[in-house]
């Protein structure tokens, strides 16, 4: 009995009128956990009842604590008939189970009914007393932290990144049980909501157990999805990356991502020693291996390679790594071995992360993806989810072998998805093949010298672009050139990845959102015939999506894609493909050639004219785009790169393999790259259509940028104004024009118009950037296309650029240095530990490596690097001071607390939550963002994962404003419930927010509609940087003294 859950029902407000006669309500509350139920008294005749109940205590196993949600039901008491339910609140108490997260859940929760929506609010306090019982056989995994964020959370450092964890649980869908025929829609919806809540609790617990087995303490990049398989059941599956995280002693030691990348980008020294250990080279056509398998039953499975790659997987598996090890220098081989051994222990060397600690990512191979078409069969035994497990294992195995073919041991930015239509299901997985630094993958038992050499030799800003595969045994044909940054290693002409842009990457100009959109008609068919038809279509779709992406990338004058996500959706009579990515110009890669149009009938004069006209249009567009995105590489790149320092060059020549020749060749290769043009032949209508679709993409209006990655390359002066939004459109295709072309045009228009609408709506935020633009396509019915977009608009300051942050840093620098000499020395020592290791080793390690590094003259490194890490360090010190100051203030003066409470915005995180809820307090602002950070603010605490599932149904669709009114209200309600839960946890923001599912079904004839929404994110507490500054100026040097002393102790 290792836990006691305590619940108190305080009050309700804005309850609906349940008694028409008196226009009032006699409300009471049922509190249920597991099989135990408590009830409050009936509060007669009030719409704002004050129950002020006793503490209801549940004594439960921690296993149940993890699985079960707390269920609060508000009812209207009726003497003569059955009590009427007003609505329910489900509270996930998981955040109370880790020591560092929330300690109490307290606040106003919207009372939700699946038929009527939100009906008033209820004030609840929840606490958990956990009794630690470490010796028993563990079924629970209390204490494992979960993060949706796909990078190391801001106030933690990664000690070890263990790797992939996955789990799935299956059950029958209550909606399809026989009992559903006799129960009310409300009962059915509630059964479903409750079941999914239970299943996700169980799933999380099981994943937690796996993490504990791996000796980790957290899951980062946790992604949980539901597959509503209809008749055949309900699958809840999750993937994530197990890590061992350490909380940073100072809660905000590092500037948020919005600042740090910008600084690093600006201040990276380009004369840094490039990686001298070349082992191999080879091309990377980014999107590379797909296999389509279709297996109607376990016994029968078929595989086929897609047409855009000449790769047959199995023969080449392992080749990349094996031969590369031989060819590379001895040091590189060592690295390889180590990585390999670290990774080979794992079944799947996959990482769901998209952003990494500096130095983690060594090389990137390209995108790997696999899809398979399956026929769903009824899940007979929910306790044995083997079939689904086997399906996914198959796909993962494929991904793994694709990565190997690219000479990579690992897959990063990994994700999985499904698309279901009737009994056919497409399983998809994709990621980016990569070579990783072993340092983070195992316990820190590596020899120091290796580690150091690694760090020393890592090329900054271009290393990840260098090809990891063997040049002589390229897995596919591609153009290779020497890296434009270091000029030592080979790079491909384009690079596609599913990860975020590494913070140290050198980018020219700004990036932009690039989408490929595609529809293909398919004959209606049943079961196996249908599945076969789909798997036959898939390779062509992948190929066309890829071509479109490539064309659009060239049209933008860019050479790399980040955050690539290809979604293939299956419908009754069509397949849809939507690929989104952020295009950038990587300084390390060659300038992309233009697009050349070639006609096949050169005799026809008018045709020739037409072609040349098109060619001109395309050339103009490329020129315009280059201007728009500020891509002017020839001058910049030359300047930025400079000439490599002679000494390291010699050094590198020594270790270089014979496959690479002298520097003159390098120069030759460089010039060669520019000549390369992409030829588009428009001999058929398809190509013509391609060209047209290329030119119809309208650039965003002036002042707007968009990307689907975390941050926009080339913009770094974000202001604090953010607006997260969800937009949904459903379009009906008229059945007359169902040809591939018409479909494509419709789909293209739908997406373009949606974007245009967004730009128009958000015009007041200009200059602004839409970040993390996430499109989801579904085909709910014949002829219906639903597109859902979630993104965040962030304003940025055009003029103020970096100056403000710099002066801020400078100020703090000065202050720190004048305060205490000792303090200055500490960071200076830190500097010798260069960027790759920062911010991950703890302070102690820092110093160790610093001392062992002392042989290397610090002067060799550019001061700017030191400067930024120094500044980070400094600001963290100052934060500590401020925090201290704040606690002192809070502790000693009571009135201060009330003042803080009175501030209605709730931005101050130090909210006094034990205080009784004030009836007339305004609602605190809760920010929501799909990003992992909040611009202009520091995340000081992670309060736990938010994972919510809601169903809303109506039988009075017209009265609720039609489908738009219904869904608009529902999404607003979902946002409200997320915000309320975060506020109750004591947080003021949700980061890494994602709407994973929005399934909408309507039946206008019956005046009915139903919608299911699943959202998740991380509840956090953040503090505005400006607030921190104010505090710091209020508490000047005097407060610094004790802290400086503390600093000495740690040194």
């Amino acid at each position: 009995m290792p836990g006691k859950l305590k619940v108190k029902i305080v009050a309700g407000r804005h309850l609906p009128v349940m008694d028409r006669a008196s226009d009032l309500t006699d409300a009471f509350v049922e509190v249920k956990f597991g099989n135990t139920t408590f009830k409050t008294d009936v509060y007669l005749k009030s719409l704002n009842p004050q129950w002020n109940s006793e503490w209801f205590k549940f004594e439960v196993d921690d296993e149940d604590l993890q699985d079960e949600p707390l269920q609060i039901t508000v009812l209207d008491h009726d003497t003569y008939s059955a009590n009427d339910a007003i609505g329910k609140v489900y509270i996930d108490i998981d955040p109370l189970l880790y020591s560092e997260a929330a300690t109490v859940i307290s606040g106003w929760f919207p009372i939700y009914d699946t038929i009527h929506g939100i009906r008033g609010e209820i004030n609840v306090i929840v606490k958990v007393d956990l009794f630690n019982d470490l010796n028993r056989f563990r079924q629970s995994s209390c204490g494992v932290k979960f993060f949706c964020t796909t990078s190391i959370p801001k106030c933690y450092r990664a000690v070890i990144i263990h790797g992939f964890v996955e789990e799935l649980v299956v059950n029958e869908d209550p909606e399809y049980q026989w009992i559903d025929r006799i129960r009310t829609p409300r009962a059915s919806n509630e059964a479903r909501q409750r079941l999914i809540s239970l299943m996700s609790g169980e799933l999380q617990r099981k994943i937690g157990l796996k993490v504990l087995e791996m000796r980790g303490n957290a899951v980062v990049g946790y992604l949980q999805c539901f597959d509503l398989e209809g008749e055949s059941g309900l699958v809840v599956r999750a993937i994530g990356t197990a890590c061992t995280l350490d909380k940073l002693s100072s809660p905000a030691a590092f500037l948020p991502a919005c600042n740090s990348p910008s600084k690093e980008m600006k201040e990276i020294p380009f004369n840094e020693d490039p990686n001298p250990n070349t082992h191999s080279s080879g091309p990377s056509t980014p999107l590379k291996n797909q296999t389509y398998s279709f297996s109607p039953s376990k016994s029968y499975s078929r595989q086929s390679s897609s047409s855009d790659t000449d790769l047959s997987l199995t023969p080449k598996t392992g080749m990349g790594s094996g031969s590369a090890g031989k060819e590379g220098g001895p040091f590189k081989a060592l690295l390889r071995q180590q990585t390999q051994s670290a990774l080979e222990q794992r079944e799947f060397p996959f990482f769901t992360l998209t952003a990494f600690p500096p130095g983690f990512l060594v090389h990137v191979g390209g995108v790997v993806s696999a899809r398979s078409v399956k026929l769903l069969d009824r899940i007979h035994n929910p306790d044995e989810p083997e079939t689904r497990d086997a399906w996914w294992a198959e796909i993962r195995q494929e991904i793994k072998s694709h990565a190997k073919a690219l000479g990579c041991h690992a897959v990063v930015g990994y994700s999985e998805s499904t698309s279901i239509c009737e009994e056919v299901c497409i399983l998809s997985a994709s990621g980016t093949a990569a070579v990783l630094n072993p340092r983070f993958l195992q316990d820190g038992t590596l020899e120091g010298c290796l580690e150091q050499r690694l760090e020393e030799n890592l090329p900054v800003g271009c290393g990840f672009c260098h090809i990891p595969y063997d040049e002589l045994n390229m897995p596919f044909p591609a153009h290779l050139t020497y890296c434009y940054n270091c000029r030592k290693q080979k790079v491909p002409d384009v690079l596609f990845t599913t990860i975020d842009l590494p913070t140290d990457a050198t980018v020219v100009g700004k990036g932009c959102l690039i989408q490929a959109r595609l529809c293909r008609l398919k004959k209606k068919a049943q079961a196996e015939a249908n599945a076969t038809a789909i798997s036959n279509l898939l390779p062509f779709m992948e190929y066309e999506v890829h071509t479109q992406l490539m064309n659009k990338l060239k049209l933008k004058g860019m050479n790399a894609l980040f955050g690539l996500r290809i979604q293939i959706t299956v419908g009754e009579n069509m397949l849809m493909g939507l690929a989104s990515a952020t295009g950038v110009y990587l300084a390390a890669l060659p300038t992309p050639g233009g697009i050349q149009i070639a006609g096949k009938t050169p005799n026809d004069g008018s045709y020739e004219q037409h072609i040349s006209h098109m060619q001109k249009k395309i050339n103009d567009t490329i020129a315009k785009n280059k201007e728009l995105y500020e891509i002017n590489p020839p001058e910049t790149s030359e300047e930025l790169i400079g000439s490599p320092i002679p000494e390291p060059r010699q050094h590198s020549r020594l270790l270089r393999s014979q496959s690479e020749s002298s520097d003159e060749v390098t120069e030759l290769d460089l010039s060669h790259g520019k000549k390369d043009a992409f030829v588009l032949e428009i001999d058929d209508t398809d190509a013509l259509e391609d060209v047209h679709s290329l030119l119809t993409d309208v650039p965003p209006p002036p002042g707007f940028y968009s990307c689907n990655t975390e941050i926009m390359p080339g913009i770094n002066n974000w202001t604090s104004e953010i607006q997260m939004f969800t937009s949904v459109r459903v379009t009906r295709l008229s059945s007359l024009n169902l040809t591939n072309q018409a479909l494509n045009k419709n789909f293209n228009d739908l997406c373009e118009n949606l974007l245009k609408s967004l730009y128009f709506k958000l015009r007041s935020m200009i200059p602004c950037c839409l970040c993390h633009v996430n499109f989801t396509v579904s085909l709910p019915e014949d002829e219906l296309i639903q597109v859902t977009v979630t993104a965040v608009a962030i304003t940025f300051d055009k003029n103020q650029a970096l100056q403000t942050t710099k002066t801020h840093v400078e100020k703090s620098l000065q202050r720190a240095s004048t305060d205490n000499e000792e303090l200055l020395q500490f960071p200076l020592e830190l500097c010798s530990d260069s960027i790759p290791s920062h911010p991950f080793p703890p302070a102690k390690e820092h110093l160790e490596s610093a001392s062992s590094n002392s042989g290397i003259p610090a002067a060799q490194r550019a001061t700017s690097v030191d400067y930024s890490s120094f500044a980070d360090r400094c600001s963290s010190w100052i934060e500590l001071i401020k925090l201290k100051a704040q606690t002192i203030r809070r502790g000693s003066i009571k009135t201060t607390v009330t003042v803080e409470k009175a501030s209605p915005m709730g931005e101050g995180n130090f909210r006094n939550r034990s205080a009784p809820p004030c009836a007339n307090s305004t609602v605190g602002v809760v920010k929501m963002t799909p990003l992992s950070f909040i611009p202009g603010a520091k995340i000081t605490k992670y309060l736990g994962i938010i994972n919510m599932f809601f169903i809303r149904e109506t039988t009075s669709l017209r009265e609720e404003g039609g489908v738009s009114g219904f869904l608009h209200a529902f999404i607003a309600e979902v946002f409200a419930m997320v915000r309320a839960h975060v506020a109750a946890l004591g947080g003021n923001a949700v980061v890494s927010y994602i709407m994973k599912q929005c399934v909408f079904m309507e039946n206008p004839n019956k005046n009915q509609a139903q919608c299911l929404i699943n959202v998740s994110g991380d509840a956090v507490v953040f503090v505005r940087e400006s607030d921190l500054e104010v505090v710091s100026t209020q508490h000047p040097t005097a407060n610094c003294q004790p802290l400086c002393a503390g600093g000495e102790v740690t040194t």
Partner: protein
Amino acid sequence: MTSELDIFVGNTTLIDEDVYRLWLDGYSVSDAVALRVRSGILEQTGATAAVLQSDTMDHYRTFHMLERLLHAPPKLLHQLIFQIPPSRQALLIERYYAFDEAFVREVLGKKLSKGTKKDLDDISTKTGITLKSCRRQFDNFKRVFKVVEEMRGSLVDNIQQHFLLSDRLSRDYAAIVFFANNRFETGKKKLQYLSFGDFAFCAELMIQNWTLGAVGEAPTDPDSQVDDMDVDLDKEFLQDLKELKVLVADKDLLDLHKSLVCTTLRGKLTVFSEMEANFKNLSRGLVNVAAKLTHNKDVRDLFVDLVEKFVEPCRSDHWPLADVRLFLNQYSASVHSLDGFRHQALWDRYMGTLRGCLLRLYHD
């Protein structure tokens, strides 16, 4: 290709002030889109008409959902569904409760009942304000009236507290409630020249001086029937006003009053002779208005009487406003020198307010 469903939901609810105004003014979505197109927004932003249509629909839907909350503004502050910055909330409320001058002049002093609501069609035609907007404004009046009608305490404060309106707007609503409760006639042709501001000014003076709340002594027994202290005129005071009749009924007193006024004002008025000639008529008019206030019917005609008995005669003699002020000051002050008159306090309470009202009402 038609959009079946098209929505945009922000974590912070987007409010477009221009669209809000169009919505408040009662335009349909298509009219609003047409008006927006005419405003040149398409050229400014490079958007298409379809984008504008979708945007307008979205905003209208949001406003429609917000309307329920706007009916009880404190709910808007406490609700969790729409995250709206406080300044925007204030703007939403203030604009929602704002009204058109033309409309308020039509219904001021009328009973806020179903009967009046039926006349909104005519008002809409007459004023050119859309019927929808008329309904909103009428319903606002009625809603505020219902809430504060029975409430104790200051009318303005009550309105401010329950509807979170600005001070200015709360005062206007206080006037509307006061007029509606006392059913003052404002629609007569004679009164057409008066603006809502004129009436609101008078209402404020009357609330301050002529109601029960004005006496300043809150009833000791909370259960006593004098609940709505600021909304109803002080009945006792109105009864007492009969006592003033002696000022015109007693000929000596009237003559003495006249001579006192004339002596002081001689040479100071440009219209002295007209004043002297008209004094008895004017005084009779003013005192008779007071004496008649015991009857509800005459209370309703207060403004008609004031204009008929005082404003019009003066205006026909072309009194400048400064002269009216001098006269009224002297007229009320001289009464203190009338030894035979015992109701000085009553006279001041009556005349103090009336003087203010008359000065405000005296214009073209």
